[in-house]
């Protein structure tokens, strides 16, 4: 019965506006969007939301339990945990966005070159990508930071490098698909130069899978940064990071559990929101997988 008539499905990806709307109409998609949106709002409006200066120490208010002044309590230096969490969101998002931009930029470039020109360029690029892939993610990031030195910039570079291969592969695969379609062949036959073809036809076509990949990579990057900071090899003091806050809290856990609980909750909620959003995004783009 399946074989008799197959309805023609429009395989074109929905436009951005309808994509957002579809996500919003899905309960999980909506939950993910709200979660991710809140974190981004925290990051963008941190100076207005935070109640204290982020590094401000208060020796009289060390280890204060959550109260009306210090909503999430204070840490071992008497710093307001709420404010540090708010600024921590900013650090997470900035590191995530910059790292993903590095990864996406290089991945896009390498993917285009590999997919379009094939031959030697392709095998060299893919070989390098395979090698990067051969390292466990966080280990390579730690290694790069170990060599370059601990700093926020090096953290972003390390996470960026680690994420390049995923983008290269996505872009290369899309380029190959697009290349095999007729209109590229037509463009060639009317004499467009290779590079012109590249930008005019391939780029808009790979935008959709690229966006999905970027969203997924962002949550991965935030997670990697938090793990690295937790290990003391990511964001360095006095910059606030959820990972390092949680790590610091371990020493004072029994006297000030709030030092651990709030950063942990924010990390979990953020990653959870991104994962829910990613799932919903995948369902919208590929309904076949929704079971």
């Amino acid at each position: 019965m399946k074989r008799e008539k197959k309805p023609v499905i429009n395989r074109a990806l929905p436009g951005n506006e309808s994509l957002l709307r579809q996500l919003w109409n899905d309960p999980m998609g909506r939950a993910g969007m709200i979660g991710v949106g809140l974190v981004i709002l925290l990051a963008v409006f941190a100076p207005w939301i935070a109640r204290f200066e982020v590094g401000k120490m208060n020796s009289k208010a060390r280890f204060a339990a959550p109260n009306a002044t210090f909503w999430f309590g204070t840490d071992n230096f008497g710093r307001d945990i709420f404010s540090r969490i708010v600024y921590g969101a900013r650090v997470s998002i900035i590191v995530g966005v910059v790292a993903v931009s590095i990864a996406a930029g290089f991945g896009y470039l390498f993917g285009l070159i590999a997919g379009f020109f094939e031959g030697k360029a392709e095998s060299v690029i893919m070989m390098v990508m395979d090698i990067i892939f051969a390292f466990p993610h966080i280990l390579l990031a730690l290694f790069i930071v170990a060599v370059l030195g601990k700093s926020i910039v090096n953290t972003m570079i390390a996470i960026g490098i680690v994420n390049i291969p995923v983008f290269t592969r996505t872009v290369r695969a899309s380029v190959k698909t697009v290349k095999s379609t007729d209109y590229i062949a037509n463009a060639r036959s009317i004499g467009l130069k290779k590079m012109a073809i590249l930008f005019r036809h391939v780029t808009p076509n790979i935008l959709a899978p690229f966006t999905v990949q970027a969203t997924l990579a962002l949550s991965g990057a935030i997670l990697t940064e938090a793990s690295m900071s937790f290990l003391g090899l990511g964001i360095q003091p006095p910059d606030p990071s959820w990972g390092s806050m949680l790590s610091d809290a371990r020493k004072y856990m029994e006297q000030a559990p709030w030092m651990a609980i709030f950063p942990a909750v924010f990390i979990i909620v953020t990653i959870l929101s991104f994962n829910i959003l990613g799932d919903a995004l995948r369902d919208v783009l590929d309904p076949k997988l929704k079971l």
Partner: protein
Amino acid sequence: MNNLLEIRNLRITTLRGKSKVLLLDKVDLDIPHKCSFGIVGESGCGKSITANAIMNMLPYPLSISDGDIRYDSRNGEVELLKLDKKAIRAIRGQEISMIFQEPMTSLDPIFTVEMQMYEALAFHHPAMTRQEMRDRALEMLHRVNIPRPEQTLASYPHQLSGGQLQRIMIAIALINDPRLLLADEPTTALDVTIQAQILRLMNDLKEQNDTSIVMITHDLGVIAETCEEVAVFYAGQIVEQANVMELFHHTAHPYTLGLLQAVTSLGGESRMLYTIPGIVPPGGQWSQGCRFADRCARCTERCREAMPALTEISPGHKCRCFLNSEEVEA
């Protein structure tokens, strides 16, 4: 029990969101002993799910909401829908077998043909030895005209062609001498030449055995070649049922007529392919009147208001159309 299988008042529903949608609507069907019975209709008319219902194997979220199916088994009459899991498993593959549309995907890709044939025996005859199973499997492969049966037994499905796989599926289906074979579009996915071979094989096997066959297809040509009795399904109902000769020569329902016109005759001159305008209304979108009304050239006011009943218009020939009978569905 006079017949091998009697279906009464069968209704099948599916879930769409949270609401139930009817897919098969009060179907009555009798399959006589030693008969080849055709069920014909377009996709979505309910013919395949009827076969799955007989085996009590409806896929989620489909379910039987009403009706009963009685079957004259070797051990006496049983009500298939009321059997417990163990009892229905004893029926499947031993009393009633089934073959499917896609031979390429109907065998498990990670096991050899041998293992999958032995399995069909072992489920029902756990005491059988390996040698006995091998002998039986080879015998069946011979009967379905598989060249080099020994080699085929050791093969994996991906190493065989669609035609060979469908022969193997038939061999597996018949390995326990079932009394009823449900063939769900067995030739649709095959090449035209292979189709003819498979149909011929099924006809031969039918001659040799006492097996009744229910042939489910969208192709009246297949029905003409293999069946004695035919039921035409449309939108979850039977619209016409008769002996094959009667149906082809005294077609009563406009839908059957449309199907006949749509069959391409290979020998004829090339002409525009006839198609019935419109599409089958899917479950949940059925009107209260005749469900074919929107696509019928001879539709009247009455057809839209009331549902014609399936009535006997001549001995053994039933039709659901106001052109033949004024009777209204209760």
